[in-house]
């Protein structure tokens, strides 16, 4: 039997405290890219009790994704944003989810991330990462402080190097960057679940900390 919303909230308060739970349940986070980074960030945030997730990905689940992404073998071929939403609902049935099966570009980035308080850049393509980063930070430039969004991006998690090389860095007040900063998937063979998940965990923790007002 699925626990009630009240029971699940009480359980969260036991582990995270009333103040944190209260802040997280009011927050909206956009996950841009639902692959190795995004699907793992989303699972972490759903478990932590974030109120609303906006899932954005144009792609479908591929058999090569199963090795590190939060999908099941019977979901191969389904749109990632929708498959992930379905998996998150099993974990956190009262989570509010908005899905967009869409490719993020200059024309739609800001409208897709909508009212999100925090935007997670979770793409695999370096140019897409830079594009979203520039779009969100340029958007902030024209907004009063209370309307500005935090951006939590990732760069460098390929290969077989130590997870200890993966770090979170505050670049500016609204821009945080996770990863080893170096290991490019195009130059460094391998994408391993634990290393990608370590980077996703850095991003998810940074999101939670920022929502709770803990800046680096």
């Amino acid at each position, binding site marked *: 039997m699925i626990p009630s919303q009240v029971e699940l909230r009480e359980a969260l308060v036991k582990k995270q405290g009333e103040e944190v739970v209260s802040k997280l349940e009011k927050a909206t986070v956009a996950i841009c890219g639902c692959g190795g980074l995004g699907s793992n960030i989303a699972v972490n945030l759903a478990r932590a009790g974030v109120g609303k997730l906006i899932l954005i990905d144009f792609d479908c689940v591929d058999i090569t994704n199963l090795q590190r992404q939060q999908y099941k073998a019977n979901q191969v071929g389904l749109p990632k944003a929708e498959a992930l939403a379905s998996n998150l609902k099993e974990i956190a049935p009262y989570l509010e989810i908005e899905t967009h099966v869409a490719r993020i570009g200059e024309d739609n980035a800001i409208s897709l991330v909508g009212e999100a308080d925090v935007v997670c850049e979770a793409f*695999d393509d370096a140019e897409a990462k830079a594009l979203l980063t520039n779009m969100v930070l340029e958007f902030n430039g024209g907004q009063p402080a209370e309307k500005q969004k935090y951006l939590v991006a990732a760069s460098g998690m390929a290969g077989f190097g130590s997870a200890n090389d993966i770090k979170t860095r505050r670049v500016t007040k609204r821009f945080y960057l996770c990863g080893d900063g170096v290991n490019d998937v195009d130059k460094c063979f391998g994408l391993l679940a634990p290393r990608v998940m370590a980077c996703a965990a850095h991003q998810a923790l940074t999101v939670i900390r920022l929502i709770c007002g803990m800046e680096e």
Partner: protein
Amino acid sequence: MIKVNGIDIEADGTVFAGKSVADYLATTNYDCKRIAVELNEDIVPKAKYAETLLKDGDSVEVVSFVGGG
């Protein structure tokens, strides 16, 4: 002194004060499609690299993304 990613880029005597962000980037190997540039904690819009001039005391951060996710 003008710092980029914490390093003084004028340490070798090259003067960047009065030159633009685009001028500085042209002296580097950065791929402009993969970067975000912050000047004193604010993003430099992509369209303003050529008109944003550097001055003494500036602190620049160039974030260069690598692929994978």
